[in-house]
């Protein structure tokens, strides 16, 4: 008798303990790991990204969290250094045991962490641009920004619509410019367009009239495209006008920001570039599904941080929202389930574009998510 009672009590205790453990687990937060370049040379990327993550993790927690659990953001600053990005990714996986990673401001930082993450089998959403991150597809790696290839496709398609088939290309020799150049040459060949002039400039050059004169003197050029980043494209734009060149002029998404307009001044008049709708939130048509998302993000960010919203922060917004959506759909934080859910996200409307993931496409955006803008009277004007 006593024995059975003891056994019963024991069983009860075990059940009770199990119940306790389960409820403790339910209250445990979902860990979102992140490594970003918040300081250092790429701080213009990492700073708005971290601000966005912090702000929306807070907001989601106030609204009750995900699957009834709170989110916990664990963040490290990689200072734009690829090897520390790798170390921090390792720390996130091994000691913090995060459920998902949203981060990697630069392509360098992302690619340094990828082998480790693939091995540890943790879902990873990168915020960096280059095409190599998701081509070829890596099982555990996703990304939110469009690639430079899509930018090239978008620009060349717009040129083709205007009946342009022969272009002059001037690109920076930095990572962004040279990758953009390669993609442009490939896309042009596919689309049956000719790059008749192909010149470059280095990031520290202060005058590009020599290169532009070269393009101007090339027979048959119908439009000029500048693929570059930083102050270079602004100098190219000024020289272009000084030389009195009147061909249609395109820039890349690398300079799609208000500070470019400030540097290039009136010389920027009439040039076109592909950009995020975030630059023109109010001129999007009413029926555009992105309009509300874009306007909300801009308003919330600017109200909270008292600084101008940037395209880069939007990559983090989309990264976090995709992660949340995948965890909700998977119903748990089981890595394989979350990965599967991420891969099958369809029709998520973000700030950057509409994401349609698939096992062959871990980016989920198409070239149309870029909008073609034209500078008119010193302001961005939505063309397409």
């Amino acid at each position, binding site marked *: 008798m006593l024995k059975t009672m003891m056994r019963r009590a024991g069983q009860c205790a075990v059940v009770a303990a199990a119940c306790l453990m389960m409820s403790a687990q339910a209250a445990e937060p979902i860990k979102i790991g992140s490594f970003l370049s918040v300081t250092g040379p790429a701080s213009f990327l990492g700073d708005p990204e971290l601000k966005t993550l912090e702000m929306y993790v807070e907001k989601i927690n106030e609204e009750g969290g995900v699957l009834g659990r709170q989110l916990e953001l664990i963040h490290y600053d990689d200072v734009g250094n690829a090897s520390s990005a790798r170390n921090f990714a390792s720390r996130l996986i091994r000691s913090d045991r995060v459920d998902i990673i949203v981060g990697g401001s630069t392509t360098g930082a992302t690619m340094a962490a990828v082998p480790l993450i693939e091995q540890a089998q943790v879902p990873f959403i990168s915020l960096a641009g280059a095409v190599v991150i998701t081509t070829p597809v890596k099982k555990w790696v996703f990304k939110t920004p469009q690639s430079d290839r899509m930018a090239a496709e978008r620009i060349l398609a717009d040129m083709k619509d205007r009946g342009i088939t022969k272009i002059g290309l001037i690109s920076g020799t930095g990572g962004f410019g040279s990758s953009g150049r390669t993609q442009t040459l490939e896309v042009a060949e596919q689309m049956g367009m000719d790059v008749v002039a192909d010149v470059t400039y280095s990031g520290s050059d202060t005058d590009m009239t*020599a290169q532009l*004169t070269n393009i101007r003197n090339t027979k048959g050029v119908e439009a000029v495209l500048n693929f570059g980043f930083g*102050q270079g494209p602004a100098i190219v734009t000024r020289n272009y006008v000084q030389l009195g060149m009147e061909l249609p002029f395109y820039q890349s998404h690398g300079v799609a920001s208000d500070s470019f307009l400030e540097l290039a001044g009136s010389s920027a008049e009439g040039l076109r570039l592909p950009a995020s709708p975030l630059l023109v939130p109010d001129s999007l048509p009413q029926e555009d599904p992105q309009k509300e998302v874009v306007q909300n993000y801009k308003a919330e960010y600017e109200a909270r941080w008292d600084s101008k919203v940037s395209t880069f922060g939007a990559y983090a917004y989309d990264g976090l929202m995709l992660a949340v959506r995948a965890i909700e759909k998977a119903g748990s934080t089981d890595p394989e389930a979350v990965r599967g859910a991420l891969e099958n996200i369809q029709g998520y409307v973000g700030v950057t574009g509409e994401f349609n993931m698939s096992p062959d496409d871990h980016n989920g955006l198409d070239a149309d998510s870029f909008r073609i803008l034209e500078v008119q009277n010193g302001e961005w004007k939505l063309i397409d």
Partner: protein
Amino acid sequence: MLAEFLQYLFTGITIGATYALIALGFTLIYNASHVINFAQGEFLMIGGMATVSLTAMGVPMVIAVVLAVILAGVLGIALQRFAIAPAKQADVVTLIIITIGASIFIRGIAQVVWGKEYHVMQNFSTDQPIQVFGAVLNSQSLWVLGIGAVMVVALVLFFTKTLIGKAILATSMNKEAARLVGIRTQMVLMLAFMVSALLGSVAGIVVAPITFTSYDIGIILGLKGFVAAAIGGLGSGVGAVVGGLALGIVEAMAAGYISSDYKDAVAFSMILLVLFFMPRGLFGAKVVERV
């Protein structure tokens, strides 16, 4: 054909004139102390950035320029007083390393005060470019050339006609002897730093409308200026001007006629060639080692 050539030439001369002004600053300090002042580029940056931020505060352009030049001059004096002078008997290499440290320090402060963005400065006169035989010349280029020429003439007069200028020259030739005839050599060194800071800041201001300006613009332009000074022969005023112009023109011609990819390679091969056949540069002084 001619238009093309002229275009490259204009581009080259404009960049070259900037290099020449920076090279002159190197030359000045080198002459007075045998120190290569790697903070020279920072004077350039201070000139441009201070002018931009003062005009943004509503100060009229002319006054902003004057204030920026004065600020750079004060900084030059401070650099000599607080960084170079305390190192008294240190050898030249140590002093050069001190100037590198100073340049990093100044750049860091500029980054904190002015931020990391690029800034625009308006052209001094019209934005309308000038057409010459089918080539285009930015009106600001004329300012760069004109002010550069004025600076060179002023420097020559300063060194040959004024007592202070002669004192600097004397110090550069023989420090001990200069001290014996009553020249306060520390004072002379301070002056040399100030004048070269003024020179650098003026260069920084006149080129800012062409190149934009930011906290780190001094690194690249400073290095190119040093290269120009080395080609011309360190210590030679004429050499600095010729070296600067030659470097600018070769860069522009290479970018135009060969390929922009090889532009820097061509410029550096030129340095190698010059230094190989004329180790003291084009106009370097012949130094006879007295035994």
